[in-house]
């Protein structure tokens, strides 16, 4: 608990110390990445159901607010709960049939449905087709959430992250939370203990989808723009997965740690390598994911635990 409060203080103070727009930008991107990855973590990390198409929820959350603005000049925030509802519906459509089959079907389905939506959105004029949608260029009032600087976004995102992490922390201590972990640890055994596996997985997916949708909404409101690639592109899904997996899938702070490491790193490689940098970044991401899978699926959290245990054992033996 003390560590958590210290961390919170650091995050609260960050913009006051690094008030430069460049650093503030990284901070905002970091928080957003941590929110998305933590949301993915609920179903992918805790329940062990690996979604590689989570961008479908992110995109839904990103498109709906801008849609409401584009067609009806409503403040984008109105679209946020609608985005959540659409994401919940998607979660049910994807999860219900696949959660009674082996895990691979779910993963394949997430990637296929995400691609399906991306292609459809790209051809549908109502949602902007390939061009995409834009948000308010100038704020008509505070409710448009269109701010000039990044600072307000920073604190809004931080608030959402704190709420999300608190929700996950609370879930960890409930029957639902234990059941999630049991499913990941051994589905067959979990079933034999009375765990309602299919239903639990579905709830996890729905919860994850809702928060991912909110992350998407935050992104769209901040950026003021969305298109099929930035909403429903596979790289959106990849980033969520790698950040959570690197820090430690299935742990509370894993995604945040992953974000703290990868977002500045990503900014660095993009700056060093310029335009071609993004290609190199994803080669790196691919490599990191393979290494995590091969050597430490539990991510840095697990690595830390293993090293700490070895040190403790050596100290006890001495």
């Amino acid at each position: 608990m003390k560590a958590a409060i210290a961390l919170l203080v650091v995050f609260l103070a960050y913009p006051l110390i690094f008030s430069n727009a460049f650093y503030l930008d990284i901070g905002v991107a970091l928080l957003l990445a941590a929110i998305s990855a933590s949301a993915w973590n609920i179903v992918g990390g805790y329940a062990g159901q690996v979604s590689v198409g989570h961008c479908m929820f992110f995109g839904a959350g990103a498109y709906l607010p801008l849609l409401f603005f584009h067609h009806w000049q409503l403040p984008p925030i109105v679209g946020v709960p609608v985005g959540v509802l659409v994401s919940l519906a998607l979660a049910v459509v994807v999860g219900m049939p696949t959660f009674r089959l082996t895990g691979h079907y779910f993963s394949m389905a997430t990637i296929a449905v995400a691609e399906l939506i991306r292609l459809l959105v790209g051809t549908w004029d109502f949602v902007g087709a390939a061009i995409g949608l834009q948000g308010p260029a100038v704020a008509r009032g505070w409710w448009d959430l269109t701010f000039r600087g990044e600072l307000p976004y920073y604190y809004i995102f931080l608030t959402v992250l704190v709420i999300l992490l608190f929700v996950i922390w609370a879930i960890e201590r409930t029957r639902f939370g234990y059941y999630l972990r049991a499913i990941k640890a051994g589905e067959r055994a979990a079933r034999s203990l009375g765990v309602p596996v299919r239903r639990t997985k579905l709830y996890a997916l729905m919860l994850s989808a809702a928060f991912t949708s909110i992350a998407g909404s935050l992104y769209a409101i901040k950026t003021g723009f969305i298109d099929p690639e930035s909403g429903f592109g596979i790289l959106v899904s990849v980033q969520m997965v790698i950040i959570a997996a690197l820090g430690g899938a299935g742990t509370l702070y894993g995604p945040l740690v992953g974000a703290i490491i990868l977002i500045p790193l990503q900014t660095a490689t993009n700056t060093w390598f310029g335009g071609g940098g993004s290609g190199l970044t994803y080669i790196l991401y691919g490599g990191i994911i393979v290494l995590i899978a091969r050597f430490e699926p539990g991510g840095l959290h697990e690595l830390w635990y293993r090293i700490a245990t070895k040190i403790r054992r050596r100290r006890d033996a001495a």
Partner: protein
Amino acid sequence: MLLLQVIVGGLLLGAIYALFSSGLTLIWGMMNFINFAHGEFVMLGMYVALLVVVWLGGGPATFGFAAAFGLFVLGIVVYAGLIRHVTRGPMLAQILSTFGLALLLRYTAFWIFSANVVSLPQTSLGGTLNIAGILVPTAQLVAGVTAAVLTVAMHLFLTHTTMGSKLLAVAEDRHAAMLMGIRPDRMQALAWGLAAAGAGIAGALMAISYPWSPSVGETFGLTAFVVVTLGGFGSVPGAMYAGLIIGLIQALSAFYFGPIYKDIIVYALFAALLWFRPQGLMGKA
């Protein structure tokens, strides 16, 4: 007549889908493992073809063999270096392993070859044939027929040779296979080699008639998922029929609704399959 042409074209492409999907379903049946990088194996086959033509001036036979051999080796290397170590681990590791590999291969290809769409210079297989009033590009016909022959050959290899029955034995009952003296590890490595080689040749065959870029791996990978699901878990014959069906559906969708819909309808079909018949044509319920 035009419709018939579309149908023939769809079936020929479908044969290529059948070829690369057979390998995917073989691995799935043997190891309960889905290779998320399978589409990238196809993509690499296409680039091998390009390199052979550009550097060595080789023809289809040459680059066909090159793709087969190169990808066969890659398949075994991937199995030995990565897959073997994650199959007994958590699902997260299993899925991330080939998913990460797919990204690695795809973006390395982007980096080396750039995102430009490329195609092979005209080979000896130029021109169009007129068969009973249907116009078929020679290249497509040769590619499709070759793919069909190779797919059937793979099926026959599995069902009528000693090596093939060893592979099937591991797929059927790993434990029993071990008791019979078969080494599952060796057989699985072989399966990966064969699957990758199949994907590689399929890519080389497609390169003859279609342009591509590194991003095709993603599309082919998804297509392979649909084909193996429609075909049924672990069923190579199922993948054969399913490949043809999907090729046909794609061609008809593009014809009636427009090119962008060829993938949309296939993915929608996938979703429908998962809801209503996940075991596909020949899988067990």
